[in-house]
């Protein structure tokens, strides 16, 4: 399944995205008809092969949004408050997780105290050795 999704993500979906965006903006600003623009865009283009991470995220978020909206208008009984609260809570949890992981990263940053001491010792050793070998240091 994943190779298919990856192929879709990498090629078809960004292609559609770019085509639709191009058609709406280009048609508005240029003298070309949408058909002419489609022709130019139908030619294979190296740049269309990869999508930005943002575009890939859109392709994943959109179906979830779609399911969520459909659920609201379906017959399944639920309250309006939960419908509104769910995405906000999920985004809040996401935010908390992101902050947590950044803080955890900072805390896990190795204490370089021993490395600093060893480096200072090596610097003295290096300077002494280089002086012996007639390299003039300041």
């Amino acid at each position: 399944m994943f190779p298919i999704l990856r192929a879709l993500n990498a090629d078809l979906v960004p292609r559609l995205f770019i085509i639709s965006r191009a058609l709406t903006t280009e048609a508005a600003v240029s003298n070309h008809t949408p058909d002419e623009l489609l022709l130019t865009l139908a030619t294979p283009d190296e740049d269309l092969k990869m999508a930005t991470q943002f575009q890939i995220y859109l392709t994943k978020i959109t179906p979830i949004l779609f399911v969520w909206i459909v659920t609201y208008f379906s017959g399944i009984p639920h309250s309006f408050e939960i419908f509104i609260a769910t995405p906000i809570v999920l985004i809040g949890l996401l935010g908390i997780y992101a902050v947590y992981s950044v803080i955890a990263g900072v805390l896990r940053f190795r204490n370089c105290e021993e490395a600093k001491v060893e480096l200072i010792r090596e610097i003295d050793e290096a300077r002494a050795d280089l002086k012996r070998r007639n390299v003039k240091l300041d």
Partner: protein
Amino acid sequence: MPGNRRGPEYSIILPTYNEKDNLPICLWLIEKCMKDTGYSYEVIIVDDASPDGTQDIAKQLIKEFGEEKIILKPREGKLGLGTAYIHGMKFARGNFIILMDADLSHHPKFIPEMIRLQKQKNYDIITGTRYSLGGGVVGWDLRRKFLLQPGVSDLTGSFRLYKKDILAKLISESVSKGYVFQMEMMFRAKKHGFTIGEVPITFVDRFFGESKLGAQEVISYAKGLLYLFFTVS
């Protein structure tokens, strides 16, 4: 495996600007750490016309360590990191390029570790990471896959070993400046599907005695991440 008789296997590119105090120590440490490993290497110093006499001390060190080991390729002015790497690579004889800083924040003792790891699985890139993952690996996998899926835990690091043609490809594709350039190279490497290994390193800022990670770097890192997220394809 002994080095290629026709030339060194590993080319260390050292961009310098006003490093007259750190450069001799750095080269001395490289020699000390690589001496008994059997790996053949060369150091290419790319100096951007340092006014403090970095090139003079470099010439002295060439006389002492030998012209085969240390090569000085100066430039006329401060022209940036990416172009310094390109300039150095023109003269590199090795099949592998090691990029590092000359200010002793990157310790050469990690270079043999990087080489060993690269040989293990023939990695395309080895990156030194300051965020060494001890326990709790499961949580960290989730975090790494979260925003950018880069596959490396230290995106802004600049202490790395590359296969030569892979580095050339990544440099030619990357457009950012400064250390976001380092992030972009890693990101593009991941997008290309290059294999990346990690070696935990310690990173010492001599003058302040602490790691270089501060609030400012965290904010810049976040800004760089967002830029890559929205623009790099």
